[in-house]
């Protein structure tokens, strides 16, 4: 399904510098982009920062959007690239992982969080252990429902590479989640 006429109009108006039009685009896509940035970082703070950065980059690159793909896919590609660059902030990433492990341990050892919260944290913890490119492949294919061809387009690599990353990531995730004793409800 392509972009709506309304969305095309917002893109055109945003290119002309209309902030209200770009605000409409942000409102439409902000939850999707935040979801991606959170899955990629495991941190609400970093997710917010990266979502902001993605929208700012998108605005500055609007002229390069040709309308050949859906606006959401184009925006997604920008956001994924922002997240992939985040891996360079290695120390911060390690800190986030340590925080996840710590809070996860606290949840497991008893607290007032729901079982769903605990399971969500377990999953996010193992996602954070994946190499960034594999995590991106999982986020795009599992959480966002892209097929491997579409994910490849977003990630700027071949479909075979995506398939291989997904395969490798799945194998690791199964092993890690099994080791943590996470079972189906």
């Amino acid at each position, binding site marked *: 399904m392509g972009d709506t006429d309304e969305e095309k109009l917002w893109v055109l108006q945003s290119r002309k510098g209309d*902030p209200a039009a770009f605000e409409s685009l942000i409102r439409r896509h902000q939850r999707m982009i935040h979801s991606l940035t959170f899955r990629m970082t495991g941190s609400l703070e970093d997710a917010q920062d990266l979502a902001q950065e993605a929208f700012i980059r998108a605005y500055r690159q609007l002229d390069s959007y040709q309308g050949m793909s859906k606006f959401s896919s184009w925006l997604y590609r920008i956001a994924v690239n922002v997240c992939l660059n985040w891996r360079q902030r290695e120390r911060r990433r390690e800190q986030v992982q340590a925080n996840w492990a710590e809070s996860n341990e606290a949840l497991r050892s008893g607290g007032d969080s729901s079982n769903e919260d605990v399971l969500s944290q377990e999953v996010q913890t193992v996602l954070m252990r994946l190499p960034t490119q594999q995590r991106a492949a999982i986020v795009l294919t599992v959480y966002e429902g892209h097929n491997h061809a579409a994910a490849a387009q977003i990630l700027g690599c071949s479909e075979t590479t995506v398939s291989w990353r997904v395969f490798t990531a*799945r194998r690791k995730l199964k092993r890690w989640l099994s080791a943590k004793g996470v079972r189906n*409800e």
Partner: protein
Amino acid sequence: MNDSDLEKRLKAARVPARDEDYWESFPRLVLAQLRAGSAKGPVAPRWLPRLAWGNGIAFACLMIGFAIGHWHGRVAKDDPYALLQNGKLLREVFTLFPNRVRAIVQDEHGVQLVLADQQDMPVSTPIYVHICDGKQCWSLVTFSGQELEIAGQKVTILSDALGSVIVTGTRFAWSSGLPAGESRGLKIEARNLDSITL
């Protein structure tokens, strides 16, 4: 665990929810960042903490020094930053340098007056901002659109149509209109000085 089990388990993991206020304010924060990044020219001149002092600045220092010295004894001694909340002092400074004041900044080193080289500053409501990073505090009176370097990063001060003050930095955006704006370890207070007429 097979592929289907894994898929179910992964999809059952929720992204932590954010409240509606967050979704309402996020687009505005992005737009504020964009405005801050694209502001150019005399409306949003760039300046540094210690600043390149232009023509006439030395004279300005003398004058502001005199004015501040005159008023310093009258402001509350228990609040070292009360000086910049003194309406009469501010009006005097703005009268002395019409359309030239970019900012008045107070930090641990004292007070600095930042002037434009020409009388091209637009007339608008002054904004008071107080920023602390845990080690040091800065107090300043400036105008919407001004960019400065503070707490080790570029900070832009903006005022929106609703009367809120937006303070954006390289890695944060804060608004006086939001109850819990993100400020990355910075404690910020800001408000429009509506009572100061130029």
